[in-house]
């Protein structure tokens, strides 16, 4: 099993002819993801890599190919518009890879997606992968292995680091989800923890957070109350100075709130095993499994 995506995922790539969109569409196809359509306005009627039909709109793509999931690689200025379009076209799961979306665009896009019963992952995220089944986004398939560990993270490349540690030590993954580093995101830790809890094949969960906001603290409360499976956690940004945005728009310590120390304490209180460094993930999982 896995969460959010599997063999039944039928993917439409929004921005399939762009630099990043085309590169990663090819990578996803090579991995075995069912890429059934692409969308680039003005390029409808073309075929991507002689295989995938390109449409002018998401609505046409859904009508013609029964796509149920979309991934967005369009530039930041039009990314919110791409989210609206996907939600309006009956897409159930929307993954927005694009970074740099204005936060105020998200205040409008999130309720729109929610009211249409869709789920948004991201923005500013690496997407997700259910190893051996499907990958949507940019997580390198080569570092993942099918298995039983669920991974959820606010980061991109730090997630790869953790997955790499797991795979090289024989711990495969059920699904790995990058939820994104922005302050307003569609799917948070709690959504992913709940999905992993319900997934019978996931035996343990690895949660990777960072400074800024209180999502990790709320997730820790949720773990304490609801999650019976072992959880191992990491918080990035122990050396980050307050008041500075550490790359991710959401990674900022405001006043005394959102610090790594505060989050680590919340994790420990909830019975989450806390890694001091990424390489601790395997030893801690061993202790807990």
């Amino acid at each position, binding site marked *: 099993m896995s969460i959010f995506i599997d063999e039944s995922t039928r993917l439409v790539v929004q921005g399939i002819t762009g*630099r*990043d969109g085309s590169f990663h569409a090819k990578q996803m196809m090579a991995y075995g993801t069912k890429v059934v359509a692409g969308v680039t306005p003005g390029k409808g009627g073309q075929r991507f890599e002689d295989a995938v039909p390109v449409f002018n709109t998401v609505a046409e793509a859904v009508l013609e190919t029964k796509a149920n999931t979309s991934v967005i690689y369009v530039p*930041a*200025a039009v990314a919110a518009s791409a989210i609206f379009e996907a939600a309006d076209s009956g897409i159930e799961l929307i993954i927005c*890879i694009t*970074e*740099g*979306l*204005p*936060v*105020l665009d*998200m*205040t*409008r896009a*999130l*309720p729109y997606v929610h009211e249409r019963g869709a789920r948004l992952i991201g923005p500013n995220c*690496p997407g997700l992968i259910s190893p051996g089944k499907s990958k949507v986004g*940019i*997580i*390198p398939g080569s*570092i993942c292995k099918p298995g039983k560990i669920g991974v959820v*993270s*606010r*980061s*991109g*490349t*730090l*997630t*790869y*680091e953790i997955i*790499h540690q797991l795979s090289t030590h024989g711990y495969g993954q059920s699904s790995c989800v990058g939820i994104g*580093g922005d*302050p*307003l995101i569609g799917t948070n830790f709690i959504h992913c923890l709940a999905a992993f809890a319900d997934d019978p094949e996931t035996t343990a969960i690895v949660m*990777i957070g*960072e*400074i800024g*906001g*209180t*999502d990790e603290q709320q997730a820790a409360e949720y773990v304490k109350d609801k999650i019976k499976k072992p959880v191992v956690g*990491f918080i*990035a*940004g*122990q*050396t*980050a*100075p307050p008041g*500075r*945005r*550490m*790359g*991710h*728009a*959401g*990674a900022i310590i405001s*006043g005394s709130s959102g610090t790594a120390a505060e989050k680590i304490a919340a994790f420990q209180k909830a019975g989450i095993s806390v890694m*001091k*460094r*990424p*390489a601790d993930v395997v030893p801690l999982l061993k202790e807990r499994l």
Partner: protein
Amino acid sequence: MNLHEYQARDILRRHGIPVPPGDVATTPAEARALAEKLGGKVVVKAQVHAGGRGKAGGVKLAKTAAEAEANAKAILGMKIKGLTVQKILIAPAAEIASESYVGIIVDRASQRAVVMVSPAGGIDIEEVAATTPEKIHRLAVDPRYGLLAHQALGLGFKLYGDVKQARAAADIMQKLYGAFYAVGASLAEINPLVTTPDGSVQALDAKISIDDNELERRPDIAALRDTSAEAPEEVAARDAGLTFIKLEGNVGCCVNGAGLAMATMDLVKYYGGAPANFLDIGGSSNPQKVVSALRIITSDPNVKAILFNVFAGITRADDVANGIVQATTEFALKVPMVIRLIGTNEAIAVDILKKAGFSALTDMDDAVKQAVAKATGKAA
């Protein structure tokens, strides 16, 4: 991006919010001319991106134009929290009957813009939140309808018992909400919102921060950036499309991705070193970005070793390798470099580095340990 008070006041004024007169000056003579124009008592205020300007001596009252000129002379060029004052605001010294607070932020939990008001104005709102949280009233605004009249009036009554003043405050809140979305703000504060002895409600001081992600589509707002108020290497990094934050240590870090960059800094500390910076070369990086990154890192005299930590995904490892090689042909690095590089196009990258005489590690801990050892001059 933070705006200066005078820039924030301009934005409020353009959105119809009552703001007392006043203008910005860069020389004592200009300050004197402005004070003469305004007449009467004026206040001279330093325009820097730092709180506590008053305590630092950056805000002074002047009874005459000559005194305003003297105050301007004292304040211009002074340092407040390491920032040199280059601009001052000259405004009439208002007679104040009461001070309150009105602010808007984007709230992560409700995923909406939240209007906050407090009758305890004129002091830092975080202090109010810590000591008397019951004095802060909040309302999450539905973006589809904006701040509705009755909602704003409800908040207005939290500030003033007088209906006229409550209505005036409500009108200001609705206009501030309009301005918030219009300029792409992440924070907009009026602190204090004052009442004058004749009963009028005015925005005396304003603070606006703009979401950096809004700047590309708002060139008029982007033009308000005052680069003289920022660290030069951070300006250079931004121009090169990098995120860079200078720190105090000696291990120069060059990483792709913000989370991994933070984890790398943390690991440097874990192994007994100290990071010299946070630097994220971002996704879709091209070789030129890596060249710029190395130029910025090596310009810091504290840096004793350079650590590359790249886990390629959307960033291609060969782009990074080409950038490293290109940089070394353009300028001397002077300090040792440790490269850790894996992921997308890793084999091509290793080949490029090998041909140029560099080797690449695959393990993050090994790379950090080596970099810390090289920076401290101890064996790994």
